């Protein structure tokens, strides 16, 4: 194993320079309109220095930290999905010519990007999307290109957020794989350093030319303690025990009606979810009908069009749409792709405008569940 290194806070500018020198555009955490978001950052000053957040169902607030930590917040407002699996993507243009239709494909975006500040749950969510978009039946070329071009600079969570439950989902808070470089931030009155793990040669290349000390025992212990502490302070829990069977048994549970009364079918939970991958295809034409464009846009199982078959929509009620979403995330995903579709990042809870909580809904079904039978079987089957 590579020895762990120490990057001093004062060397962070040099670290940024090195990333730039290697041709990477840096995408990292920064403050925007009252939240931490991932966006292009040019210098460490643009990071959320000394900021953290408080998250509950439907509520997000920035707060000052007592220190100058760069990565002292929990899950950011939007996930990295928007850089890998673009919200809108032009697939092609078609022109009417005398020799028939002529198709033109847009130039692929081949920018190299360094993702700075990727969390354990976010690596897990990328792996879930990889399974679908790279290793599935069809390859999504735009995703493959963006994913291969992305350098992952991960960070260990210093603290878990109020809506986080990655521990329940076995996806965090400790980063153990899937990174090029991994930083553990240690802040104290005397020092501010980052313990660096090197995951790949590509990551090692970035560190070349930066004079890094070797981490000593005390630093390593400190780093380990921070990760343990984050794990001990998870905001939420989602009991995974027999989850698939539990939900399959309870398609007719009265709790779905309760949640449907609150659900706005607004799509926010699906769009902030780092694993949701539904899209819709839209064709537009110009007035003379000589040119057409085909666009792909993020879609959601909360829209009526999502389940539109000829003549009508299959999931007309809010109930059936919320149930589809939650059971897909937590249960049918397992049958479909071999893992849960949820990594426990808590975004769907925080960014639901009315604070609907997937952990609470599951717990409610579990505690009163199995009292009702369903089309999929009876209690105890």
């Amino acid at each position, binding site marked *: 194993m590579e020895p762990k290194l120490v990057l001093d806070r004062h060397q962070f500018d040099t670290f940024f320079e090195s990333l730039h020198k290697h041709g990477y555009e840096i995408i990292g955490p920064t403050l925007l*309109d009252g*939240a931490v978001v991932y966006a292009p950052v040019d210098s460490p000053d643009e990071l959320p220095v000394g900021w953290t957040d408080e998250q509950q169902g439907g509520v997000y607030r920035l707060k000052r930290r007592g220190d100058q930590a760069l990565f002292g917040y929990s899950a950011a407002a*939007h996930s990295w999905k*928007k850089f890998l699996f673009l*919200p809108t993507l032009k697939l092609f243009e078609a022109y009417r010519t005398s020799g028939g239709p002529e198709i033109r494909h847009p130039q692929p975006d081949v920018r190299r990007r360094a993702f700075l500040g990727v969390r354990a749950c976010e690596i897990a969510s990328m792996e879930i999307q990889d399974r679908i978009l790279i290793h599935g039946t069809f390859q999504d070329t735009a995703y493959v290109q963006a994913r291969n071009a992305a350098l992952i600079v991960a960070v260990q969570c210093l603290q878990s957020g109020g809506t986080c439950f990655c521990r329940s989902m076995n996806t965090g808070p400790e980063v153990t794989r899937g990174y090029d470089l991994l930083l553990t931030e240690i802040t104290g009155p005397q020092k501010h350093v980052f313990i660096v793990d090197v995951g790949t040669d590509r990551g090692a290349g970035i560190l070349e030319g930066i004079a890094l000390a070797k981490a000593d025992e005390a630093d390593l212990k400190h780093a380990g303690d921070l990760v343990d502490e984050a794990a001990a302070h998870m905001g939420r829990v989602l009991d995974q025990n027999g989850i698939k069977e539990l939900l399959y048994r309870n398609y007719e549970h009265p709790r779905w009606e309760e949640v449907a009364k609150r659900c706005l079918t607004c*799509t926010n939970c699906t769009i902030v979810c780092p694993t949701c991958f539904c899209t819709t295809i839209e064709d537009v034409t110009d007035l*003379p009908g000589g040119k057409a464009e085909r666009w792909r846009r993020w879609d959601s199982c909360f829209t009526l069009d999502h389940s539109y078959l000829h003549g009508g929509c299959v999931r007309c009620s809010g109930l059936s749409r919320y149930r589809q979403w939650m059971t897909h995330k937590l249960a049918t995903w397992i049958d479909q792709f071999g893992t849960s579709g949820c990594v426990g990042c808590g975004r769907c809870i925080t*960014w639901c*405008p009315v604070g609907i909580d997937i952990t609470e809904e599951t717990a409610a079904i579990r505690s009163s569940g199995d009292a009702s039978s369903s089309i999929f079987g009876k209690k105890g089957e």
Partner: protein
Amino acid sequence: MAGKRKPRLAVWKFASCDGCQLTILDCEDELLSIAAEIEIANFPEVSSAIMKGPYDISIVEGSITTPDEAERIHRVRRSSRFLVAVGACASSGGLQALRNFKDVNEFISFVYATPAYIEALNKSTPVRDHIRVDFELQGCPPNKYQLMEVLSACINGRKPAVAQHALCLDCKRKGIVCVMVANGTSCMGPVTQTGCGVICPSYRRGCYSCFGPMETPNTDSLASWFGRLGMPSEDIVREFRTMYGWSEAFRRESEAREKETKA
């Protein structure tokens, strides 16, 4: 489409502010290509040369507020092959439908020197309440790209790509930080149909639903959340009583909340 005659377009005004028609004129760059593909046969705001019907596409702006309009809209329907109602007035009764919640004769007696000259219907109603409408384009005023899309779809013989889901989906596609979650600002986005381009949240203010209800608006849940954000019931009533106040979903909600304020 060589040899074929151009589709003929008519634009009709009922009780409205003209904002929708201005949206058509605002398609500056596209107007030439509209004129190349469509014969503007009856559009008094653009040209005094008015050709007789029938028309292939009729765009109707405005609500029905007078006995005369209630008759005229039938004539428009008879002379139109494809009829599109555009804007809040045509699709829900508009801002002037706020009078529907009160007694119109009282307003008339206050406003006009000689109330006897005024002939108005009790209620301001959407076009759909009077005739069959082929397509409704929401928005006060509607979005010009959506308007172009509807025209383009009409003449190219396809379904218009006009989404009916919540504004939130486009808000998130644009990467905007939710004003309600992050700032505690009330936002009608979750019950509002997308189409405006997410203007208000882009400027850090809540949506006030100038595009009207989305496909399945859960107004009760959102109104309750507004209450939790600290909004008094009277203000919740007002949130649902703007240009789409007479749409069924918003009307039911404001009436239910109004009862609460009186209880």
